[in-house]
């Protein structure tokens, strides 16, 4: 191989690396979640200025996913304003966001501005608008059910807007199944049992069975995460917890899983 071709290749690799690194000279700013394993998998924490998706596969899991998103938002925003865009329908199905509930999770409702969008289109448009405003800490888009409008193009638009401003987009998809998108990470959140030690009272801090099913720059995993309301961060549950959890496919990269999926599909 001639040196000219080698240098072309090197230039192209450099281009790709720059594109991958969000088009800027700086490494993405990350907000540590507090859960050591998850932070390690995410190379230090949740990337700011990117799109993250959180799925509740069934409608009854919606509050759990909401709690997880509120936790992520609290980690990412760092007391900057948060805009929560919600479809009208989602409020009917899953209930409104309760401010006292947010307070109890350690989140400050004073930072919150809620937008009630009549339909998915206007919700998406509002989210894209809000993402362009770099005074915000994060924007949450809450959508109920499968949304035709939330396709690859829409997701790419959100990603570009988030990258340009550095505002984090958190997509809360209730009663929906994952579809292709350009999200940085994708989580499926389910409710987790309280520690069995507590018998009659004190069910303890909120617990999430969080499965990382997509991670553009790292490996996947599944963890039980506890939300520390006082410290406002996620943590590992106590080691004595014999909660059965499916083995995390930590040895396998997301590409490998994707390959496997393709093979199954083909």
């Amino acid at each position, binding site marked *: 191989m001639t040196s000219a071709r080698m240098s072309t290749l090197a230039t192209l690799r450099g281009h790709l690396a720059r594109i991958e690194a969000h088009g800027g000279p700086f490494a993405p700013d990350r907000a540590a979640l507090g859960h050591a394993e998850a932070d390690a998998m995410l190379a230090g924490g949740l990337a700011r200025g990117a799109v993250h998706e959180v799925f509740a596969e069934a409608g*009854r899991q919606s509050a759990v996913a909401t709690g997880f998103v509120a936790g992520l938002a609290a980690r990412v925003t760092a007391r900057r*304003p948060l805009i929560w865009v919600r479809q009208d329908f989602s409020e009917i199905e899953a209930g409104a966001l309760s401010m006292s509930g947010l307070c109890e999770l350690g989140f400050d409702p004073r930072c919150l501005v809620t937008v009630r*969008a009549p339909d998915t289109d206007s919700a998406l448009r509002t989210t894209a608008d809000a993402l362009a405003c770099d005074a915000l800490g994060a924007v949450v888009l809450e959508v109920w059910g499968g949304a035709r409008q939330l396709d690859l193009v829409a997701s790419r638009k959100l990603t570009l807007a988030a990258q340009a401003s550095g505002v984090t987009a958190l997509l809360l998809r209730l009663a929906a199944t994952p579809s292709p998108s350009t999200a940085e990470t994708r989580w499926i959140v389910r*409710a987790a049992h309280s520690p069995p030690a507590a018998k*009659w009272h004190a*069910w303890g801090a909120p617990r999430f069975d969080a499965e990382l099913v997509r991670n553009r720059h790292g490996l996947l995993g599944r963890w039980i995460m506890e939300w520390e309301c006082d410290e406002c961060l996620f943590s590992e549950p106590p080691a004595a917890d014999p909660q059965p959890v499916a083995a995390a496919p930590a040895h396998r990269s997301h590409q490998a899983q994707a390959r496997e999926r393709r093979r199954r599909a083909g």
Partner: protein
Amino acid sequence: MERDAPSVVVAKEHNALQIYALDDAAARYGLAIGQPLANARAICPHLTVFDADPAADTRTLGDIADWCDRFTPLVALDPPHGLYLDITGCAHLFGGEAALLRRLCDALTARDFAVSAAIAATSICARTMTRHVHGRIVPDGEELDAVSPLPVSALGADQAITVGLRRAGLKTIGDVAAREPAEITARFGAGFSTLLAHALGQGDAPISPRKPLPDYIVEKRFAEPVATESVISATLSRLAETLVAAMERHGKGARRLEAGFFRTDGALRVITVDTGQPVTRAAVVGRLFRERLEALNDPLDPGFGFDLIRLSASHTEIVVEQQHDLDTHVHDNDELVALIDRIAARIGSRRVFVHLPLETHIPERAVLTAPAQHHLASAAAASWPERATGEPPSRPLRLFDRPEPIKVPLATVPDGPPHHFTWRRAVHAVVKVEGPERIAMEWWKQDGKMLTRDYFRVEDETGLRFWIFRDGLYGSELLDEEGRPAPANWFVHGLFA
């Protein structure tokens, strides 16, 4: 229908159909307003009759008033058929009073309205003139000469007063004006003598315009109507620059902006934009209107084009110029306010809200949602109840606006928690329970219809956490007709994270 067939509009008055309005052909037959329809039919059998529709009349008058907005911002209604226009300082824009009057009357006549108009120094004088003469311009100081020959009915006083004047032999306004004012006041009351004085140009009654006068107005007239979006948008931008420059001279910023689109066919469309803080930049004004116009449910219909676009600032505030320091928090807040304005302009200000705490124990009423445009500052300063450190959440994250009923089989202990329940067609077995937390309703606010609630925090076998309550106290509040304890209703009120 024949063009010259006599036609009348009738309305029911004193249980009889009477003529409410008529055309020239009907008047030639000797019909008059107030005549019973039966009599009119006897005089003129081939009469065409229409029902009166006062609501439509009012609407039409309002539309004409809208159209008249192009001449002056001060247009007042004089029901049922009249309009006052305060053209002080406006006439020269249209080539003088005579030209303005001609233009107004020609345009209305072209649309088949019968017009009678007059210009005078006082509104009452002008109204009196229109009753019998069309197109008169009364110069200052000649009101007495102008109205003297007119009959007293032209004053528009009560029927009783008009009849009384006629009976007293005072046929014309000149006759009445010749009497001593004290005599007139003694006989017909102070109200009538004031009316007379106004008609004679002595003192003036203020008109009450339909809309308050905006603080700043700029407008653009087109010789040829414009209909394309690009021209409209460019015009708005230019108008915004002029408006902002005018406000800047007085150190003002706009809180509410109105764009009026006057169509050539007389229709007027007004689009309003509210802002959270005074706007002082033309680019922001232009952008807000673009957002608003794009999001309109019924888009701006140019029809055959607009011949006048007007931009006005109907609510302004003094802007305190702030020097931003290097710390960017102040600036951040400005950006957030601008973002809220843009979203509100598109989807409505009620849909963008902040949350304020309310002093109540009833969970669904503990939060007040207020439009973010106006309450951003108070929301940022609100004091929310502190959470108890070290405790798990005692309130759910998602709260149903209306608690959802659940099916609970009879509990072993009547006022204890259930062992399992059915919510949205799925059975949940209760694994963990915490409670009850008793929340009494505010008896001092309502008539005791709402029952005391016992809330339980329960966790089911999959780890889902619910906030359920029993409506009513077993044995004391829940009794059937014979005084025996009745089964309670259970509800899911919220879901914990």
